[in-house]
C-alpha cells in the first residue's frame, strides 16, 4: 500500500543523505517522524519549510502533521540559530539559586530574550527545563559544554569571550 521508493531531496547537499539514512532505518514509516526531524535539525541547525516539506513527502505524512510535531516539541527550532548557543537551565534548583538574574543580565546587555538570537547572529539564548546537573546549580550550557555555579559575572564573561574570539 505504501510506495517505499526514495524521493529525491530538494538539493544535492550531502547532508540530505544523513536524513535519508534515518528515514530508511525507520522503514520510511510515520513513526520515525520525530527521529527524522532530530536528524534534520542536527544536520542543518534548524527546520525550514523546505525540509519540512521534504520529510512530509518522504514519510507520506500530511504537512500539517509534520508542522504540528515540529512546533509541539521544544527542542525543534524553525528559525536559524546563532553561531553559538547559550542554554540557561531553568530547573527548580537553578531557579531558586539565581537563574532569573542571569537571564535578566543577558537581556540587559544583549537585548535578547530566551528563544531569540542576537541581531548580529553571534549567539542564541535558549532555556532548558532541567539539564540534570542540579548539584551545580545554576547551570548554563555554552555550545554543548555544561558550566556550573554560574553568576551573572561568570556568564557574561563566557559570552564576551565569544565576541573576543571573532
Amino acid at each position: 500500500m505504501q510506495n517505499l521508493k526514495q524521493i529525491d531531496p530538494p538539493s544535492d547537499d550531502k547532508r540530505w543523505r544523513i536524513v535519508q539514512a534515518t528515514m530508511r532505518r525507520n522503514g520510511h514509516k510515520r513513526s520515525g517522524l520525530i527521529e527524522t526531524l532530530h536528524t534534520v535539525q542536527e544536520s542543518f541547525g534548524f527546520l525550514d519549510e523546505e525540509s519540512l516539506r521534504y520529510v512530509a513527502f518522504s514519510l507520506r505524512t500530511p504537512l500539517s502533521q509534520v508542522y504540528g510535531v515540529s512546533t509541539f516539541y521544544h527542542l525543534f527550532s524553525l528559525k536559524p540559530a546563532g553561531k553559538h548557543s547559550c542554554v540557561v537551565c531553568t530547573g527548580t534548583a537553578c531557579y531558586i539559586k539565581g537563574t532569573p538574574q542571569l537571564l535578566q543580565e543577558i537581556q540587559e546587555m544583549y537585548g535578547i530574550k530566551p528563544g531569540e538570537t542576537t541581531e548580529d547572529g553571534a549567539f542564541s539564548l535558549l532555556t532548558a527545563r532541567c539539564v540534570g546537573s542540579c548539584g551545580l546549580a545554576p547551570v548554563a550550557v555554552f555550545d554543548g559544554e555544561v558550566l556550573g555555579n554560574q553568576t551573572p559575572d561568570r556568564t557574561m564573561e563566557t559570552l564576551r569571550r565569544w565576541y573576543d574570539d571573532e
Partner: protein
Amino acid sequence: MNEQFEQITAKEQAAAAKFDNAVHVCVAASCLSSQSDKVLETFQQQLKENGHSASCQVKGVGCLGLCSRGPLVAVSHRDRPESSELYQHVTPDNAPQIVAALVAGETAADLVCATDTPFFQRQTKIVLENSGHIDPERIEEYVAAGGYQGLLTAVTEMTPNDVIDEVMRSGLRGRGGGGYPTGLKWTTVAKADAKQRKYVICNADEGDPGAFMDRSVLESDPHRVLEGMTIAGYAIGADKGYIYVRGEYPLAVARLKKAINQARRLGVLGSGVCGTTFNFQIEIRLGAGAFVCGEETALIASVEGKRGQPRPRPPYPAEYGLWGEPTLINNVETFANVPPIIRNGGDWYAGMGTAKSKGTKVFALAGAINNTGLIEVPMGIPLREIVYEIGGGVPHGRVLKAVQTGGPSGGCIPEAYLETPVDYESLQQLGSIMGSGGLIVMDETSNMVDVARYFMEFCMTESCGKCVPCRVGTVQMYHLLDKIYAGQATTKELALLEKLCKMVRETSLCGLGQTAPNPVNSTLRYFRQEYLDLLLDGERVTAVATTPEAQP
C-alpha cells in the same frame, strides 16, 4: 550461558587482581561538566609517565553520589582495602599530587572527602549498587558484578508466571511517581489479549525539574535497565521494547546505544535470549522536550511519532497501548529494581521499607542543601534524616523553610512536618507526592508565592493544549499568581485562584492538569500568610515581602 558468565567474571577478576591500586574517576554528567574527563586523562598520562600504569588501574565509573563535591575520584588499594580514599574537587592540576601520594602509599590529605559521614553511611544501595564501581561502557564489568544473572534465572528456570509472582511478592511499586503496584500492572498486561504482539516501554522522559535519578542510572549502569526490561518482556510475553529517553540527555543515549549493542553481541538481548527461544529487541526513542510526554498515553503517542498529547483512560495502555496493543510502561528506576528482585527473591526486597512502600528509593537532593547529589535510602526514612543528616543541612547558616518533592505535580512540605516518613501515602497526606524523586530544599530566601508562580509558569508552558481546563486554567492561574506576587491583587482574586485550583484539578484530562494546582494548594495550606502579606487588602502580620535576592 552460565559458563560464559563465569568465564567473563573470572577474566575480569584476574584482570583486576593484576593491579595493586585502582583509581576510579566519576564520569557521570555532573562531574563530567566539571571536566572530569580531563582529570581521567591526566591520571592515565601521569601513571604512564611514572611507570605505574601496570600496577594501577584507572577507569571512568558512574555516579559516585556527592555531586556538589565533584569531580570525585575514588582510590582503592588491593592489599589494604581499609585505607581507600575519596578525593573531592579534583582538577587535572592536582592529579600529580594524588598520584605521588598513591605511589608513596600516602594520602593527599587536603583533597580527601570524608566517607564516614551519614551521607555515605546511611544509604542502602540496590538500584545504585554498581554506580561508581563499574565502567558503564563495559558489559563485562556488569556481568562480573552479578549482572544478567537475574535474566538468566528468569528465562531458564522460571515460567513467566513465576517471574510475575516474584515481583508481586516484592511489593515493588512504580517509581515514576504514581506508585501503582508493579506486579499488578505486569499481571494485567500478561493477561491481555494481543492482536499481534505486546510491547514494553521504559519511561526515561525524566521531565521534573530538579530530578536526575533516571539520568544517573542510565549513565552509570545502563545494562541494569536493559536487563529489567528484558525480564519484563519475558514475564508479559512481549518481544519488543522501547526506551523513551529525553533529548536533553545525550550521554545517557550514547551509553544506552553502546549497551544495547554489547548485550546483543553477548546474546542476552535479541533473538534467542540466553540460548532460549525467547526473543527480545530494544529500540531507543528520543524525546524532543515535552514534559507532558511523561504521561503514559502521551508518551505512546510520541513513540508513534505524533504530538505528545494524552488521551482519556480507560482503556489503559495495559490493554490498548502502543499501536493499539497491550503495552507495559514502567519507569527507569522500576526496571532497575527488577534484576536484584529476581536474583535475591521478592521476600528479600519486601523485607525493606514500610508496610505499604517496600524497598528503597533514589532521591536527587538539590537546592539549598550542603550535600547535593544522588542518594538511595530505604522507604520510610524521615525527611529530617534525609535533609539534616544525609544532606548535611542548609548552607550559609540559613533556616530551612520547605522541602519540595514531586516537581510541578508535587508540593512544598514545611519544616514542621519533617518527621514524616518518606512513603507514598504519607507524602500524599501532606498534599505532596513522592514523584520520581526530586527533592529540592528551600531556605528562608525563597518566597513561596514566587515558587508557586514558577511551577505554574512551568505547567502553563508545558500544557499540551488538548483539554480546556488545563490550557486556559493554567494561564489564568499564572496571571493571578503573578498579580499577587507583584502586590496588585486583592482577597477576591485569591479566592478566585482557589476556586480555579479546584476546577482545574477536577476537570483536567491527564495528570499534568490534575496536579498543576498542587504547588499552589500546598503553599496556600502551609504558607498562607505569605500570600496575605502581598495582598492589597490582606491581613498583614509582617512587612511587605520584597523580591528575594539571589543566593551567593
